[in-house]
């Protein structure tokens, strides 16, 4: 088991607290199966370019920090770039701190870590140049809800009322129809955002997202794409049975 980054500094009244879904992502990304997949894909031999790892919706930063901290164990190389995006500015700041705390602990033990370029405040992948991301990780707002909370506006507001905090928190879990409205938008951006040669994505789904239907949709993207469930929470009952699907380009040279 690889250590989980500390998030004790995070203000959970306005930032999603690491929960079962976060830990399923950590377990899946560090599973033997995924380490093998990622190490084959991103092997450091032959001087392949440093992979860029993006997490969308970093929240506390526990997942991105985990990937940054354990890049050598998981990807088989320490020269990995990591970047985070969140619509919540407090989450962006918290992620930065979570990554830095974990990096300092590793450095103190003489262990390697990836290179964190920073966090950006933004809506999904809208601020990114096409074709740059090699590994995208997304723990979406996946809970079905009557409506989607509106995004914070570009205008800066420094006030943090109880309502603001509630809305930021709601943005981290409320997913609209089938809990899929935000995930659908993210999926639609993958062909543009993921790198042509090596792009792959890990996306968390719950049972109410109708994962089989989601996977069928991705299969219809046609040649050059594949999708597979690579991690599950293993529960059979309850409405929030979780799974991680890996979506990847298959024409890796």
């Amino acid at each position, binding site marked *: 088991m690889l250590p989980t980054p500390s998030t004790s500094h995070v203000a959970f009244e306005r930032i999603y607290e690491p929960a079962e879904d976060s830990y399923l992502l950590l377990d899946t990304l560090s599973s033997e199966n995924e380490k093998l997949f990622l190490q084959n894909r991103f092997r450091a031999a032959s001087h392949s370019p440093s992979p860029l790892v993006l997490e969308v919706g970093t929240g506390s930063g526990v997942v991105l920090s985990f990937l940054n901290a354990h890049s050598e164990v998981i990807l088989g190389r320490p*020269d990995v770039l990591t970047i985070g995006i969140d619509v919540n500015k407090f989450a962006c700041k918290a992620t930065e701190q979570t990554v830095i705390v974990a990096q300092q602990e590793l450095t103190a033990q003489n262990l390697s870590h990836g290179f964190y*370029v920073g966090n950006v405040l933004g809506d999904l992948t809208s601020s990114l*140049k096409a074709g740059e991301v090699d590994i995208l990780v997304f723990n979406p707002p996946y809970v079905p809800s009557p409506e989607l909370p509106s995004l914070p506006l570009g205008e800066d507001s420094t006030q943090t009322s109880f309502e603001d905090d509630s809305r930021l928190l709601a943005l981290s879990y409320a997913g609209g129809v089938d809990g899929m409205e935000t995930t659908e938008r993210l999926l639609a951006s993958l062909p543009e955002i993921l790198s042509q040669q090596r792009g792959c994505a890990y996306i968390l789904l719950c049972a109410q997202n109708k994962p089989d239907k989601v996977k069928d949709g991705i299969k219809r993207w046609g040649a050059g794409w594949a999708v597979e469930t690579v991690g599950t929470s293993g529960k059979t009952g309850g409405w929030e049975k979780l799974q991680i699907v890996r979506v990847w380009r298959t024409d890796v040279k």
Partner: protein
Amino acid sequence: MKVLTLNFLTCAVKACKSTSTSFPLHPKDCELVSDTIEPNALLILNILPRIDWNALITTASELGFPTLPALPPTRDELESNEKMMSELHTLLLETQISEGSLVCGNCGHEYKIKEGIANFLLPNHLV
């Protein structure tokens, strides 16, 4: 955010995506801070092939860094050029933008950077 981030970012306005002037974004009134980071030649060497060199030339010059050569060094050239390695180390790995803004060359929208976080959330009229 590290200066390197500018090599991955573009204007969030949909209509700008297809224009060549929306990348790279142009730093404006930026405050820079420098972290001290141990030399990491492997990282620089493996970042190099994925960098949009022309965009980096623009970014470096707009931030007041020494002028970069017109063509990126090859891996071998970089390995044997201590000065270039050290300049890239400073520019790509150590330098952070803490305050200021990033401006789109196409639509002119300014993305504010506060405490090292660039804000790409768009106001209603641009969404």
